[in-house]
């Protein structure tokens, strides 16, 4: 037995210039991060303030950083595909088929698992505890494990560029093609272990968020007083807890097939491929709603804040969210209508699929009616929200079309489908997260993002989106299958060139996002927000300072209404100082979370390359770390009341200097600084 399993020198990509440059960019990227940290002499800060942190806010920021990095990587994949298809009419283009297949697989895998999921976990981590008036999530250490397991999964996808190859089996990895017989290399294993390891992290995140919401709400925060973002997180957490096991089982069994020669999904020896597809989509469809519900939550917060009105139809939005959560488990078969279920079965799932559009429609009307007669302020988060509303409805209509099995038989596996789900996920998920990013950035860092560049990013994204994906609807109707590396039908090419131009405009949007971040950091002093309430906000996250103190709330707020913070401002009690402060317990920092993530990465890598001794060693390391942690009864430290008082003194000094909030022209704020109306 080889000590390095099947890892040999051939695993390094010297066989192709494009693959080698991908590897070079990955390695250079990692080296430049190390160089920048060293240059800034920031290792101590990075390690002791961030990597070891159990603070939900810092963990949230690290999640979003991971998401933004992976967004770049996933976008480069997308641009390479669009470039290939734009030129590969009657010729081979510039990408060999094997490489093209890896790219569409990694694009989907990265965008779903390592862009959307971390972005979602990051926004939830940072904001949800503050919205319910809590000081942290229920299980801060488990939160760190979730983060670092997600990083480990992302690391496996990234390192597959340098060592070995990635899967060519698509982001959903259907057997038998993803089985060992047809795919003997390491590609599918990279995909499997990245997804499995990150999936465990997501399940734990779901448990953490759910317990936090049910057990850590501030006094008076009844369920029906929770902000809508928190409501969507609540439902999303339930979906994570109950849907992710299906992914774990599907991928775990496929891994058993591949690694130990079992026969769950093989062609021969009694395998049943359909069973994989059922299990995968039993997770996969709820996953769509796991991603999109928190984005709906962001839109709800943004639309109310920038329309300067109470959210229209709060109860109906809550009910619609719950309905979507339940219905999301009843539609998974629409992903494979063509696989030969009976007409009755297909009809049932077709009908359920059209029904799930109803609560979503309710939401769209609620958002529109919130805007109706509101004094709308067109800041970038609001632009993304409006862009979402228009674009998402179009995508929804194409979805209702695809829900009809006879129509689906025509469109299945064509670019019509590709256009449809991008038409849902880009406005529905990505626009939501970008809106949340721009909306809550000042909360996390204490200064606003540049609005000009934010506006430009929006226009590039939305124009680019329409140019990139509307042609794919047409191509789908013309019969173009998805995932084609080259084609011989010249009539397709003009549409694909338009789509490539769209991708180029989206690239400009991505660049605008980068420029926005750089410019905002450079000009941060001018954009500083002293109040903590950057947008004249409505929910409790705006009651903390920006960035929030480690404990968020020096004294827990008492909630009397939906829009709790707005209500406090109206009553003039939002900025009152308590008579005295109390000691606050906070989680101590620890490196064990990151250590477990690192061991998870090593374990995945060892399983991919069949390095059994290393896999056992990594598992033993994880076990040992967990035992050490479970034997430690001193996981918290106490922040003494006088230090809390000191921090709060500073905060109120800032508040007294703060200019009147530019958005606060509400009667409740007439005249003077934010402190007016307080004692």
């Amino acid at each position, binding site marked *: 037995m080889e000590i390095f399993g099947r890892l040999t020198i051939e695993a390094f990509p010297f066989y192709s210039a494009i693959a080698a440059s991908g590897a070079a960019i990955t390695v250079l990227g990692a080296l430049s991060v190390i160089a920048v940290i060293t240059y800034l002499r920031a290792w101590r800060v990075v390690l002791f303030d961030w990597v070891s942190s159990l603070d939900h806010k810092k963990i949230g920021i690290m999640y979003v950083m991971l998401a933004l990095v992976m967004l770049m990587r996933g976008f480069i994949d997308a641009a390479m595909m669009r470039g290939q298809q734009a030129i590969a009419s009657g010729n081979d283009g510039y990408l060999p088929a094997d490489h093209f297949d890896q790219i569409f697989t990694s694009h989907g895998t990265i965008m779903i698992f390592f862009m959307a999921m971390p972005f979602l976990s990051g926004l939830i981590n940072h904001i949800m505890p503050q919205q319910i008036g809590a000081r942290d999530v229920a*299980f801060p250490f488990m939160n760190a494990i979730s983060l670092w397991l997600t990083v480990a999964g992302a690391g496996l996808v990234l390192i597959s560029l340098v060592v070995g190859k990635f899967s060519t089996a698509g982001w959903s990895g259907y057997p038998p093609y993803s089985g060992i017989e047809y795919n003997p290399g390491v590609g599918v294993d990279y995909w499997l272990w990245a997804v499995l390891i990150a999936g465990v992290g997501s399940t734990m995140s779901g448990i953490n968020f759910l317990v936090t919401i049910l057990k850590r709400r501030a006094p008076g925060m009844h369920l029906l007083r929770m902000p809508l973002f928190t409501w969507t997180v609540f439902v999303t957490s339930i979906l994570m807890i109950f849907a*992710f096991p299906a992914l774990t*089982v599907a991928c775990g069994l496929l891994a058993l097939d591949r690694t130990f020669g079992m026969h769950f999904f093989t062609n021969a020896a*009694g395998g049943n491929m359909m069973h994989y597809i059922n299990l995968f989509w039993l997770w996969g469809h709820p996953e769509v709603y796991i991603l999109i519900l928190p984005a709906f939550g962001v839109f709800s917060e943004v639309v109310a804040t920038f329309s300067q009105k109470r959210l229209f139809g709060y109860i109906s939005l809550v009910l619609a969210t719950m309905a979507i959560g339940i219905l999301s488990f009843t539609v998974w078969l629409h992903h494979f209508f063509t696989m030969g279920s009976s007409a009755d079965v297909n009809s049932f799932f077709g009908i359920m699929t059209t029904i799930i559009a109803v609560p979503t429609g309710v939401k769209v009307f609620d958002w529109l009616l919130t805007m109706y007669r509101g004094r709308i302020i067109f800041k970038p988060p609001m632009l993304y929200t409006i862009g979402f509303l228009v674009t998402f409805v179009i995508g929804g209509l194409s979805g209702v079309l695809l829900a009809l099995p006879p129509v689906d038989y025509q469109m299945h596996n064509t670019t019509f489908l590709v256009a449809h789900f991008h038409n849902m996920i880009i406005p529905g998920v990505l626009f939501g997260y970008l809106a949340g990013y721009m909306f809550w950035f000042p909360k996390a860092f204490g200064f606003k993002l540049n609005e000009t560049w934010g506006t430009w990013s929006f226009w590039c994204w939305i124009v680019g989106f329409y140019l990139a994906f509307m042609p794919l609807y047409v191509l789908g109707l013309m019969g173009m299958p998805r995932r084609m590396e080259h084609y011989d039908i010249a009539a397709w090419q003009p549409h694909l060139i338009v789509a490539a131009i769209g991708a180029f405009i989206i690239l400009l949007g991505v660049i605008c996002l980068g420029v926005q971040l750089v410019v905002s950091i450079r000009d941060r002093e001018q954009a500083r927000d002293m109040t903590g309430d950057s947008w004249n906000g409505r929910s409790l996250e705006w009651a903390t300072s920006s960035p929030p103190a480690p404990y968020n709330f020096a004294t827990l707020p008492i909630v009397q209404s939906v829009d709790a913070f707005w209500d*406090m401002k109206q009553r003039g*009690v939002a900025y*009152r100082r308590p008579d*005295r402060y109390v000691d606050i317990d906070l989680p101590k920092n620890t490196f064990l979370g990151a250590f477990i993530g690192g061991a998870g990465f090593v374990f995945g890598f060892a399983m991919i390359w069949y390095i059994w001794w290393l896999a056992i060693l990594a598992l033993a390391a994880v076990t040992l770390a967990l035992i050490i942690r479970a034997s430690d009864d001193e996981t918290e430290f106490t922040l003494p009341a006088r230090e809390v008082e000191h921090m709060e003194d500073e905060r109120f000094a800032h508040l007294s200097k703060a200019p009147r909030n530019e958005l606060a022209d509400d009667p409740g704020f007439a005249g003077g600084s934010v402190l007016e109306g307080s004692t």
Partner: protein
Amino acid sequence: MTAGISTTTVSGVIPASAAQKYEEKAFGFWIYLMSDAIIFALLFATYVVMLDNTAGGPTGKQLFSIERAAGGTALLLLSSATFGFASVALATSNRLRVLQWLAVTAVLGLGFLFLEFGEFRSMIVEGAGPDRSGFLSAFFALVGTHGLHVSVGIIWIVVMIGQVSIKGLTRPVASRVMRLGLFWHFLDIIWIGIFSIVYLPGVL
């Protein structure tokens, strides 16, 4: 505005208080068990789907010994009872009894695993290993996953024996023993499902 945030400090009932924390951990653990139950539910479903996919290989009827399965069942059910005694001893803060019953539970669990390994070994030797057919893959995945859980449970019991010996029945230690109990009884319930769906049909 006496109800404003200024005048009411709620330090007496802050959610960070110790009692609340243990309750949160127990609640979180219940939710984890529900999530784990979904994994087993899907493995059961997989087993039932694959039941006839023997690919010309041996069937359950030919392979399974109801005596051995009944022996394993007896050991595991008994271990649930002995864990119950450990919990009773925990409630009365009898440290020595807790240690004794935890040790007995671990030994019974090891006995169960011994029988299971014996069954797996003899099947593999007979050429009825997990790579023989879809049916056997599903069998080994379902029963093996349960066995893996029992192994984790035994490691956890050993850790808790260590903690109770060194730290005594402190509040955090007691709360961990309680969650371990939930885990152990949960595995018993899963096993009853396995016994009924995997082993019983072979003799009926």
